[in-house]
């Protein structure tokens, strides 16, 4: 069966997919597979897990399409499935650890700014694309999963604060406070690479 998906807007696609139109669902998969894979890789930090998450997300998405009523965007809905699958993978990998993945310990330390230095005019130019990619990836990897997940959804996938809250099943204020910590921690990590050479780095409380 040939579906001219180009002419359908997304809600029409979703409606067709719910009726069992394979071509319509395939089009949705096609639209979002790359983003879902990127998201899964950022959260799980692992190729194999990311692929599992990718498949599970779209298989579960199809199974549960009946639960999607179109009050949010399809993308937000499928992201929520992907986030849950990714967090489950993380939990499995870290089953031996006692640190909970969803509740940050509020020590207040994460918003203490320790390093302040002016950055180079164009610091990205000093690194190859590959080096830069590694620096950015490693900085994200070093974040705790609760902060990483919010950062990935808000600043990489560019979901709104409300969509992020919905996808993670947490409150808007929780998204905001986690995002602030994530951004500040990344800023600090990148400062080590991007600061203007020759400047003294000073610390304050």
């Amino acid at each position, binding site marked *: 069966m040939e579906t001219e998906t180009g002419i359908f807007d997304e809600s029409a696609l979703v409606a067709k*997919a*719910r*009726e*069992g139109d*394979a071509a319509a*669902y*395939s089009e949705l*998969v096609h639209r979002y*597979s*790359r*983003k879902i*894979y*990127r998201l899964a*890789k950022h959260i799980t930090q692992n190729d194999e897990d990311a*692929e599992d998450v*990718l*498949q599970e997300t*779209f*298989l579960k998405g*199809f*199974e*549960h*399409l*009946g*639960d999607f009523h179109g009050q949010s965007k399809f993308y937000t809905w499928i992201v929520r499935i992907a986030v849950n699958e990714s967090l489950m993978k993380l939990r499995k990998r870290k089953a031996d650890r006692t640190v909970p993945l969803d509740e940050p310990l509020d020590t207040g330390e994460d*918003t203490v*700014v320790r390093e*302040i*230095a*002016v*950055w180079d005019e164009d610091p*990205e130019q000093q690194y190859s*694309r590959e080096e830069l*990619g590694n620096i*950015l990836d490693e900085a*994200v990897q070093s974040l705790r999963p609760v902060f990483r997940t919010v*950062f990935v959804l808000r*600043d*990489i996938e*560019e979901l709104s*604060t409300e969509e992020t809250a919905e996808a993670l099943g947490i409150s808007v204020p929780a998204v*905001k406070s986690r*995002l*602030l910590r994530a*951004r*500040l921690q*990344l*800023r600090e990590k*990148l*400062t080590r690479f*991007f600061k203007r050479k020759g400047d003294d780095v000073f610390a*304050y409380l």
Partner: protein
Amino acid sequence: MLTCKEFLQELNDYLDDVVDVQLRNRIEAHITECPNCFVILDTTKRTIQVYKGMQPQTLPEDVHARLIRAVERKLSGRKPSVG
């Protein structure tokens, strides 16, 4: 005048452009007088920009092929349950 701590608390909303004019003015007044916070604002803004400009993760061909196969297998099986 805003303290540095208050500035930090408002930083996100300022960066996401969801503060009212009054607060915006107070934040901007703070950073003209506080070089540390100016640098924090500038480098945080650039941190976000550098991530937004990141190359999108490509979906490796074999991963894509396996996804399509898995989805096709599923779709040929049955309709989604409409509940």
